[in-house]
Structures are given as C-alpha cells and as structure tokens.
C-alpha cells in the first residue's frame, strides 16, 4: 500500500473534479456520496498504511515516492513527490478521519443551500490541498498545499458571497495569510541559497535533514524565523491572528474543518516537520514558544467577553494553537502533534455542536439569546459537554493528556521556559472558565430566545448527530494514545513519532541553556531534576486544580449567580469594553495598514503617476509643440522641400558618424 501514497490525495482530487464539472447536473445525493466517499477512501488508505507501519520496525517507517519533476531550472529542482512517515500518517488520519465526519455532517447542515455542489467541490479541493501539504516530500510542494488550503479557505469563508461581511472576511484571510507566506517564501529562498552555497541544491526534507549540519547557526536562525512568520499567518498567531475570528463568516462545518481541526494547524505541522532546523536555532524555538503562549493567553482573555458562540470558539482555537506552538517550541514536537490531534477531535466537535445549536436556533449565534437548550437538543448538549470537559483538561479526557504533556515539557525545559509554563497554566484555567461560560450560557438557565425561535427548536437529524457522537467518543478516548509514563502509560504516540523527531527536542533545549540564556536559567534553576517524578505529579495535580477552579468560577457566575457578571461589567466597564472589542486590534490595523496603504496608493496614483510622471512627459510634448510652432514658420507646405531637408539632415548625421568612426 505504501507504494500508493499518492492515492491519499488522489481521491479527494477526483471528488473535486467530478463535483466541479458535473455537480450542478447531478442530484444532491450523488454529490454528497461522491464527496464523502472520496474522503472515506483516503481514510481507508491511511489506516491501511498505519497498520502496515505497525508491522515494520520503527526506523523503516519512512516511504518516499517522486511522481514527476515539477520545476527544473539550473540547479533548482522541485519534484511532485510524496513522503509518508509517522508524522504525515497521523496528519492524514486526522485530516481524512475528522474530515470525513465533517463531510457527512455537512450533508445535513448544508442540505437546503443553493450552492450545495459548489460547497462540496470546495470542500474536496480543500482536503486535497491539505493532504498535499502533509504528504509532500519537499518544501515547495508543501507550499503548494499551504497556499492551496489558503485559497479554499478564502473560497469557503466567502461561500455566501452576497454578504459583504463574508467576502470581506475571505479577502482578509487570504491577504493576511499572504503576509505570512511572504516570510515562508523568503525562508525557502534563504534555505535554498545558503544550502546551495555548500553545494547541496535541494528542498527535499530528507536531503535537507542529512545536510542540515552544513548550515551555520545564524543561517538556521534566519531560516526558521522566516518559516515561523509563515506559520503565524496560517496558524493565526500574534500578530497575524486577526483573520481567524472573521473567518467565522463561513458555514459552520467549514469553521470546524478548516479553521479548527486541520488547516490552521498547518503551521504547527510545518514547525514539527522542520524540527531538525528548529533544533539548530534555540533562540527561535524560544520565540515560537513565547509567541505561542502569549497568543494563548491573549486570545483566551478575548474569549471571556464574546457573545457570539462561534467567535468564542474561534478565539479558543487561536488560544489552543498557541498551546501547540508552546509544545513544538519547547522541543516537545510529539506533544504538539498530540495536542493537534486531540484538539481536532474536541474543537471539531465544538464547532459542529455550535452548528447544531445554530441550526436549532434558526440561525441565531448570539449566546445572550440562547439558554436552556439542554433539554431540547440533548444529543448536541451531551456531546458538547464532553468536548468542553476535554478542552478544559479534566483528567481522563483527551485534552488533559495532551495539554498536560505540553505544560510539563515547558516546565521541565526550565530556564526562561518557566515563564512560558506559568502563562500557559494560567491560560489553561482561563480556557476552562470561558468554555464553561459558553456551555452554561447556551444550554443552561432560562431560554432567552424569542417565542417564534423557541417554537422551532429541534434536534438535528441523524446525519449530523452521528458525527457528533463519534467525535465525542474520540474526544474522550483520543488521549489514551499518549498516557504519560507517570500514570502507568507508555506514551505511545511519542514512541510512534520517535523516528521523525528523534532526540531533536531535548537537544535544542539543552542548547538553549548553553546558548545565551544562562543568566535567566540560573534564576529559575531552583527545581532540580532528582525528584522529577514527584514534580511531574505535583504539576499534574496543580493543572487539574486550575481547570476545576476555572470551571467552578464559571459555575458560580453563570449558574448560581447570573447577576454577578453584569455587576463586573458595570464595575470594570473600561476593561470590559477593551476586551469586548478585542483590544481594538482590528481598528488599529485598519488605521495603520489598510488606511496607510490606501492613502499611499491615492497619493501615488493621483499625484505621482498622473501629475509628476505623466505630467512631466506631457510637458515635454508641450515644449516640443511650442518648438514646432516656431518651426512652422519654416513650413511652406511643399513636399519636395521637406524631402530635401530630410535627405540633407540624414546625410549630415550619417556623414558625421562615418567621419567619427574613421
């Protein structure tokens, strides 16, 4: 089967082509079957390859296959080629597995939409591009998938293109991503040119890894920083996160698939994929972790005051992506990928659940107009509860294992990473709080909807609830592939990923300690490594306590004493307004960048191009015309006279030249 890795992206491509060309003529049922089966087929191939991997010794679990040479120019050569190893197979499983469930869910959710075939065409195209991204064997092909998913994101955010807000959001997403891609492209150039200077012209992961030692530390630092800029765009990190909350304009299953489970995690995947480069650049690793944790706490705080159910989830996604970057930033690549996977389950589920709520509420997204839904839509409610518990980090659920692994690794990295750990732990508590705020506000208490809406509230059809239930099960059990040793587990996912990541992570953090962070390290070096196990246990208990505190506060505020939050709002109205308005970041960007660019454009067009440049050229013409009017005095209108003048002139010029040359 491994010889057919290209089949994984091929199926959705076929689905895309069928629905793209014939979708409008086919009945809806055929469109849905084509789209869903394409994903299911890819999923089956992925699972088959996974089981083949289990039968192989770990070091043999890497397969590569070049299909054809794509771009060749001089020393430059990029192939269309695929690579399957433990990292990419996990990504494939997440993308096709969760993707398949979301496709099925969409059959119900989008049923009455006039753009039904268009929707599934885009969705299949997206999955195709995402699979290209994760199965590519070289950076340029990864970039194809990278921009390809960006395109699909653009198309799907603006799916309801008649709404200005939707098409604006799509455009914003694409352009902000392009800013990140600017870094990505420069990263490719720098890598190619610096490695080429050592005689190795390649963009293939394996080749780069083999020759990574040829890169100097400073080159590695620059390259990884540039790639990370790309990651902040795609994975919505500070300062380029602004597009993701707006992306909620798209249909909810799209938010679930693209803007929670898969595409936005591409940045994390990329850092993990290039782990051998990042491990050479400890400073950048620290920046990755720092940006991650700052994003985590920053967007978690915004999540406190949002009332739109999807926006809360969007900020939560930004925040959780921050966690993943903390993971890869402390060198715990496996933990980052582990969290990526569990997050795909529970965040995918949260969005689908939100979609089910919105579906039940006749399109309403404002939490203030919900409440008390738990009895009316029980399946949605219970699956949502599981997801909330999972994301909050309650022991036994998937989010607990993955988040705790990241926290522990951040703590044990020591040195300045302790600060990262502190912030991440606080953000974890905040996550628990705002997720339960969302849960209580939506499903508990009195129903605040209008009578008419209330009348229509109904549970979603099976085609939507079954994916919810499957994801709920995964949100619970998904964590058991990574039970830490301390709890008697074997952390199988880390073991499985070992051939890709090796000891890269520890090495980097070691390097961080020696590479310039000494002073800070010493200050934090109080906790020794001798009692590591008991420290890990203590921390685990601590993070559980933090989670429960968050949940408890939410319970106090939104169930026991619903008047309290309102009092807070009036008491700290300035703070509330800032948080509610997302710290005015969009407005600031709007003034500085958008207005700035438009202003510059206006000046350039109206003044510079039309007056300075065109004007000066036209004035040359005007001067010539004036000279011409003087010369007109010489004109008598006899053609012979002109011809004579021309010949004389030409002879003089040519004669002069001839003489000079001689």
């Amino acid at each position, binding site marked *: 089967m491994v010889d057919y890795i290209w089949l994984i992206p091929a199926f959705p491509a076929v689905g895309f082509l069928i629905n793209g060309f014939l979708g409008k003529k086919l009945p809806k049922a055929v469109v849905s079957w084509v789209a869903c089966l394409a994903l299911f087929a890819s999923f089956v191939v992925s699972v088959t390859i996974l089981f083949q991997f289990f039968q192989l010794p770990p070091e043999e679990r890497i397969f590569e296959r070049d299909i*054809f*040479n*794509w*771009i*060749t*120019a*001089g*020393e*430059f050569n990029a192939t269309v080629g695929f690579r399957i190893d433990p990292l990419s197979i996990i990504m494939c499983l997440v993308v096709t597995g969760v993707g398949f469930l979301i496709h099925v869910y969409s059959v119900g959710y989008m049923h009455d939409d006039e753009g039904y075939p268009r929707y599934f065409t885009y969705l299949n195209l997206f999955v195709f591009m995402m699979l290209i991204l994760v199965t590519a064997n070289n950076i*340029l092909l990864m*970039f*194809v998938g*990278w*921009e*390809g998913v960006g*395109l699909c994101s*653009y198309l799907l955010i*603006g799916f309801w*293109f*008649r*709404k*200005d807000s939707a*098409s*604006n959001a799509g*455009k914003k997403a*694409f*352009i902000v991503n*392009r*800013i990140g*891609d*600017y870094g990505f*492209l*420069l990263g*490719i*150039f*720098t890598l*190619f*040119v610096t490695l*080429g200077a050592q005689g190795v012209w390649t963009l293939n992961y394996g080749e780069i890894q083999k020759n990574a030692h040829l890169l100097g530390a400073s080159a590695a630092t620059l390259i990884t920083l540039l790639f990370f800029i790309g990651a902040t765009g795609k994975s919505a990190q500070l300062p380029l996160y602004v597009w993701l909350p707006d992306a909620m304009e798209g249909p909810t299953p799209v938010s679930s698939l693209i803007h929670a489970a898969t595409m936005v995690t591409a940045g994390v995947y990329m850092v993990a994929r290039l782990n051998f480069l990042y491990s050479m650049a400890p400073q950048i690793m620290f920046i990755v972790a720092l940006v991650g944790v700052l994003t985590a706490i920053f967007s978690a705080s915004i999540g406190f005051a949002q009332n739109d159910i999807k926006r809360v989830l969007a900020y939560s996604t930004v925040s959780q992506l921050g966690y993943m970057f903390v993971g890869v930033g402390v060198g715990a690549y496996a933990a980052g990928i582990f969290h990526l996977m569990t997050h795909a389950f529970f965040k995918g589920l949260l969005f689908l659940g939100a979609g089910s709520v919105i579906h039940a509420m006749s399109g309403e997204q404002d939490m203030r107009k919900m409440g008390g839904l738990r009895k009316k839509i029980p399946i949605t409610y219970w699956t949502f509860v599981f997801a909330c518990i999972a994301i909050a980090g309650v022991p036994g659920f998937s989010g607990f294992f993955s988040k705790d692994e990241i926290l522990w690794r951040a703590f044990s990295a020591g040195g300045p990473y302790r600060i990262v750990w502190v912030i991440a732990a606080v953000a974890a508590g905040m996550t628990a709080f705002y997720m339960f705020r969302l849960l209580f506000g939506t499903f508990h208490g009195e129903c605040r909807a209008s009578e008419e809406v209330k009348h229509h509230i109904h549970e979603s059809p099976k085609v939507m609830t079954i994916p919810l239930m499957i994801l709920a099960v995964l949100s619970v059990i998904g964590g058991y592939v990574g039970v830490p040793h301390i709890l008697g587990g074997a952390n199988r996912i880390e073991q499985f990923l070992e051939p890709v990541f090796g000891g890269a992570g520890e090495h980097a953090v070691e390097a961080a300690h020696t590479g310039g962070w000494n002073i800070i390290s010493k200050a934090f070096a109080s906790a020794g490594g001798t009692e590591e196990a008991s420290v890990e246990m203590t921390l685990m208990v601590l993070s559980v306590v933090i989670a429960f505190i968050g949940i408890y506060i939410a319970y106090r505020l939104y169930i026991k004493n619903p008047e309290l939050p309102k009092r807070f709002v009036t008491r700290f109205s300035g703070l509330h307004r800032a948080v509610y308005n997302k710290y005015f970041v969009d407005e600031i960007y709007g003034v500085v960048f958008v207005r700035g*660019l*438009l202003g*510059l*454009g*206006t000046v*350039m*067009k*109206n003044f510079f*191009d039309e007056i300075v*440049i*065109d004007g000066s*050229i036209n004035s040359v*013409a005007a001067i010539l015309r004036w000279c011409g009017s003087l010369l007109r005095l010489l004109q008598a209108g006899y053609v012979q006279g002109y011809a004579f003048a021309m010949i004389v002139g030409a002879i003089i*010029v*040519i004669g002069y*030249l*001839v003489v000079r*040359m*001689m």
Partner: protein
Amino acid sequence: MGAFCFPILSVLIYVPLLGAVTLLFVRREHGTYIKGFALVISLIEFALSIPLYFYFNEKTVGMQFVERAAWFPEWGITYFLGIDGISLLLILLTTFLTVLCVLCSWRAIETKVKEYYITFLFLETAMIGTLCSLDLVLFYIFWELMLIPMYLLIGVWGGPKRVYAAIKFFLFTMAGSVLMLLAIFILYYQFYNATGTYTFDVLQLYNAHIPVAKQYWLFAAFALSFAIKVPMFPVHTWLPDAHTEAPTAGSVILAGVLLKMGTYGFLRFAIPLFPAAAHAAIPIISILALVGIIYGAIVSMMQPDLKRLIAFSSVSHLGYVMLGMFAFNMQGLEGSIYQMLNHGVSTGGLFLIVGMLYERRHTRMIADFGGLSTPMPILAIFFMIVTLSSVALPGTNGFVGEFLILLGAFRANMLFGILGTTGVVLGAVYMFWMFQRVMFGEVKKEENRKLIDLGKREVLILCSVVFFIVLMGVYPKIFFKKMDTSVEGFLKFVKERNAYYVASEGAPVKVVLDTLKKPAE
C-alpha cells in the same frame, strides 16, 4: 536534426500578410466571410507554428530553422531568420493569442470590419517577423512595422480618448526607436572599423569588440527603446492609456505580445551585444524593475477602471520579468522568460474577460459592477481562475514564473529578492479587492441583474486560456525543456563576454566612473 529544408519561418511570417492582402479584395459587405477568413488564417498560422515545437532540437544551442539570403550585400544587409528556444515559445504565444483575438473580436468590432482584420493579420506578420529576425535592419523594419497596425487598432477602433492614447503610444515608442536606430548604425560602423566587413548580422555582431565606454551609450540607447516597450518605470505612462482605449483584442495582443518585444529585445540584442554594459546596468535596471513591481501594484490598487487596473498590474508583472532577467542566473532568467508567457496568457485572459463584460455593459468602471457572480456564475469561475493565475497561486502558471524570478533575484542579491517578494502580497491585495468589488456582494445595479452568462464562443476562448494556466502551472517541463539549452548558452555567452571585457578593460564600475569623470575635467 540537420537542415530543415522547408522555409517555415518565412511561411509563418507571410501567411498572415497573404491573408491580409487577400482580404483587400473581399467586398466589405461580406462581414461574416471576412471574420471567418481571418479566423481560418489565424488557425492555419497556429497550426503551422506547432511543428516548430516538435521539430525544434532542444539539445543544441544555436539558431534553428535558419534562412539566410543576401539582400543588400554591399551594405551587409541579409535576410536572416532563425529562432532559439526563447523566441520559439514567444512565437507560439503569438500565434495562439492571435486566434483568441480574432475570436473575441467577433461581436466586439462592428465598424470597418474588413480593415480591422487586415490590420490584425498585418500585425501578426510584423510580430512574428520581429521574433525571427537575426539581422538588425530586418529586425528594425519589423519592429517599426508593428507600430503602425497597433497605432491604427487603438486610434480607429478604440474608446473615446483613442486619438490621444494612440498618439501617445506612437510617440513614446518612436522616441525609443529612433535612438535605437542611431545605435544600430554606430554599432555597424564600429564593427566595420574593427574588422573591415559591413554586416548587420546579429550573431556576428555579438562577437564584436566594443570599447566598454562606448557600450554604455549603445546599451543605453537600445535599453531605452526596449524599456519603453516593456514598459519599465518611469516610461510606463503610455501603457494605461493605450490599454484603456484599445479594443479588447488590441489590449490582449498589446499585453500578450507587444510588451514582450521589449523584454525579448533585451535578451536578443541589448544584453548579448553589450554584455559589459548590461552587467554594469544591473543595479539600475533591477531597482527600476523593483519600483515597477511595487509601484505598479500600489497604483493598480487605486484604479477605478478595470482596464487601467490590469494595465498597471502589467507594469508590476513586467517588473518581475526584468528583475529575473537581470539576476543573470538560470532561475531568474528562465523564470523571466516563463513569466513573459504567463503574462501573455493570464493578462490576456483578464483583458478578454473585461472585454466580455464591456460588450454587455459598455462600461469598464469597477463601481458599475458588483455581485456579478449571481447572474454570471460561469464567468465567475473563469475570472477566479485567471485572477489566481495573476496572483501566482501555486498550481497556476504564474507561480512557476514568479517563484523562479524571486529565487533568482534573491540569489543574485538578497535585498532585491526581499523587496521583490513584497509584490506577492500587494498582488493579492489589488487583485482580490478588484475581484470582490466586481463579483461579490448583492447585485446593486438594475442593469446587472439581467446580465447573460457566457456563450459557447466565450467559454471556448476562456477554456483555452485556463487550459494553459493549469498546464503551465502543473507541468512546466514541456516548456522549460525547449528553452533550457538556449538559456544556458545565453548565460554562458554573456558571462564569458563580460569576463572578456573585464579582463581587457578592467572592472566595469571603474570604467563607468572614468566616463563620468571625463566631462568634468
């Protein structure tokens, strides 16, 4: 492959001319016959150009399909034709786009139909001739011949400000051409003085020894002439006017082929004839190219008129072409040539689409549109794909060219690469903003509500554009393999010649300083 006995290049040059002459004798009442005849001629021409691709031997460096006949032997003027991998691809682009142009003019041109198609076929002759000529006089004749039909296309079949635009176009290009003519003669006498033979044969002139100080002036004259045609910042201002006023087919051929004559001129003449000067000019040309990329993009963003917007985007895209060319490495140069083809396909496609909108609404103002995806879903798909090609999305042709150019530029000079890559972001800004304002949102104007979607002829035209967008994006090898050897040979030659001049006269920069000092002394 040996001798290719059939004079295929001459045939390619004169078939359209023959068609044009034949049309002279058709009575103007037979409008449909005239159109049909022009279409058949352009199709024959396209079909005739295809064997070039297959019979072109990609393994040899030299010129192929060579035809040489004495013309004015006493003056060293020969009828000398031949192509390499670079001109081969541009010829194919020309014959392909001409077919599309004839097709898209079907309904758009209602007045003086006969003259229109005669002009167009005549233009094709001139373009192919320019691309095949290896004799400077012959080249210059074809070069100037291109001017006249284009001038007429804008001036006769253009929009309301057509006369202004046509004269501006004519004067700009004439101004450059005159300087080039002068430079050609100086080169001619220079060669005669050195060797005692009169020749306009480019391949011989390539090996002339031209003192570096003189090269600067000659290069400047050639470069100015070509830069106006490209057009490079700051001599680009004729382009927006010409594009805006030209009929659709005129815009397509102008963007698709005529602008490439400028960049082709650099490759065939300005750089190999004066390699030392070309190397010395790298900073100037690269900086102007970068300004063109960024400036073109920003000014494009603010245009209220679709055609002006695309015209400025051309300034930006041609900036890439020049940037890549003057990187003087394989990536930059091959990307540059590829970008010439890309630009022909994708900007040609954009002009075709704007033309289709214009035929329906008789306006090109962005503000007059909005929400067109609702009445015209098929157009929306094509427009989207062509837009994506223009913003160089991976998988489309635009990406291959832009990526290689930027990579080459980065390799040659990091700063140029860093600045040039900003165009990637700006390109997305102006194209997507334009697309949104035209296609998305509610339909606000009554007139737009009942727009009729594309017909079969239009779908056929755009399908062929999209076909090449995808083919060139996914499997560029079929085009690269034809130019690889030629480009390699070109680079090797130019580098060797430059090294020769450096060895014989010292570093070029020093010479520049010397020439600058002279007048002051």
